[in-house]
């Protein structure tokens, strides 16, 4: 397993100033990457440089400064298109993050294309961001929501049921590429191919896959793909909605205002095509430069190796947890995507996470924004360790030790 760890880990760690932080007198072991990731110096420095010397509003000025800002903003789009395999830069829309991207699809595309009686197909493992917007759309439209069920213990989604429910031609099929709770990776390309054949629109929540493993939206064959820069070493406040040209063209505007219009009168307006149509107002300019820098940074490494690294750490953690009495590890038996969620029969997740925290280990406790899934698994509150390219085997060991110490404390007497 350790041969799957990144060989230049010390060098990588040196790129992340956050890893200098100490908690309780110990260097932090940041194992909450599923919630958000830390930023390398290159991203932080690029944002500061843009803010200091290259900043102006975009798409608005004849002056050189505005032109240059527009160029760096559009260069980020071109970079993101290439990184994620979009057919054209115009297919990449900047959003605040995955949540806004999915709301654009459910709110604007869905508003136009989902009708009363239609079925919206989701899965039982969705994050609230890919669940609640669809519930709201269904309520508004009188549509029905169905779910691909999970296998026992959250080992994956039921493949038979997925095929059967998809074959029934829902109007849209929206699902996570990688589950933020179970570490399950869904067969995106297979489902999208099936869906395409029978005219079902596909929406992929890529929050946990983008920048963690190689993603080529064209090869995946989805209609929409959503992700957040903060989940892959980029800044907060920016994310992407990538759409096939036809899918974006079939989506009405979302926010209304400057930059997304063509011609405005006191009685009406006409709108631009994508991506401008979906980017009303001043966008996250400094953040676009930071996103660009994050993609450049990831490209200095090797995405398949990054994925293997995080997976190896997650497997190590899962193995260590499984042997502790009373601990239940959710998710697939074999390879899991960079994270492990577990539940302890007799000690609450909050108490475990708090104990970890006191030893400088940051893990997540709660419902992981997947309340219905966790309820179904019988663990409304659970702990998660989630890994990224800068984590080490030593941090896994510290995490396991902290969990064991917590259990010993709460189980004594």
């Amino acid at each position, binding site marked *: 397993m350790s041969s799957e760890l990144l060989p230049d880990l010390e060098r990588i760690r040196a790129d992340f100033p956050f890893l200098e932080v100490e908690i309780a007198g110990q260097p932090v072991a940041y194992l909450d990457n599923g919630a958000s990731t830390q930023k390398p110096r290159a991203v932080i420095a690029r944002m500061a440089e843009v803010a200091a010397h290259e900043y102006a509003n975009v798409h608005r000025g004849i002056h050189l400064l505005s032109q240059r800002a527009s160029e760096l903003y559009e260069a980020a789009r071109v970079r993101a298109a290439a990184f994620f395999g979009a057919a054209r830069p115009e297919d990449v829309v900047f959003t605040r993050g995955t949540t806004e991207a999915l709301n654009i699809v459910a709110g604007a595309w869905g508003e136009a294309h989902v009708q009363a009686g239609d079925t919206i197909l989701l899965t039982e493992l969705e994050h609230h961001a890919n669940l609640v917007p669809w519930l709201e759309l269904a309520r508004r439209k009188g549509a029905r929501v169905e779910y691909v069920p999970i296998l026992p213990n959250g080992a994956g989604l039921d493949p038979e049921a997925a095929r059967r429910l998809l074959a029934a031609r829902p109007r849209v099929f929206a699902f996570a590429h990688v589950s933020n709770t179970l570490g399950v990776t869904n067969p995106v390309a297979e489902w999208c191919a099936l869906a395409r054949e029978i005219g079902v629109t596909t929406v992929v929540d890529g929050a946990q896959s983008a920048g963690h493993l190689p993603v080529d939206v064209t090869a995946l064959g989805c209609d929409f793909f959503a992700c957040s820069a903060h989940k892959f070493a980029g800044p907060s406040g920016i994310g992407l909605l990538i759409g096939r040209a036809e899918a974006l063209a079939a989506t009405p505007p979302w926010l209304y205002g400057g930059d997304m219009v063509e011609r405005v009168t006191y009685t009406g307006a006409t709108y631009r095509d994508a991506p401008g149509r979906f980017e009303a107002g001043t966008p996250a300019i400094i953040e676009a430069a930071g996103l660009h820098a994050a993609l450049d940074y990831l490209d200095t490494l090797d995405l398949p190796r990054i994925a293997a690294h995080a997976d190896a750490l997650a497997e190590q953690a899962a193995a260590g947890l499984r042997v502790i009495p009373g601990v239940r590890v959710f998710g697939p038996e074999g390879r899991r995507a960079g994270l492990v969620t577990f539940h302890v029969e007799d000690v*609450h*997740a*909050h*108490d475990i996470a*708090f*104990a970890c925290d*006191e030893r400088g280990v940051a893990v997540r*406790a*709660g*419902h992981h924004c997947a*309340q219905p899934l*966790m309820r179904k698994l019988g663990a*409304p*509150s659970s702990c998660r360790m989630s890994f990224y390219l800068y984590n080490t085997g030593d941090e896994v060991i510290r995490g396991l030790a902290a969990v064991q*110490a*917590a259990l010993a*404390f*709460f189980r004594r*007497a």
Partner: protein
Amino acid sequence: MNEELYQEVLLQHSRRPKNLSPLPGATHRAEGVNALCGDEITIELTREGDTLRAVHFQGSGCAICTASASILTCETTGLRAPEARALAEDFRRLAVSGEAAPAVADRPRLAALGTVHRYPQRVKCATLAWETLLAALDHPV
């Protein structure tokens, strides 16, 4: 382990909570949820005139949440409704800011819970039951 937060009296209440069961014939009832972690708690009580004859809870939370709920049932049984309300407000203030009104300072179990104000990420764990009690007082079944 943090011995300041997890004082023995709290651990006792979290391991062997008092009044953790449905309350047959409850006159008032409310459910509370900690939006951050998903913990849910139900408070039921029977009121005779103005007096809280019995206070029970259901649901499972962390050690702090469970201890707080268990202690709540002990401390409020027999109080009059306005007293229970005042105590809940006093406790909330203690948990958030460490400011101890006489009513809570006089109750060692509440004072023990009050150390939570030094751990802001745990405050909601301690206050959930008390907020739910306030809601229950307003919700006759």
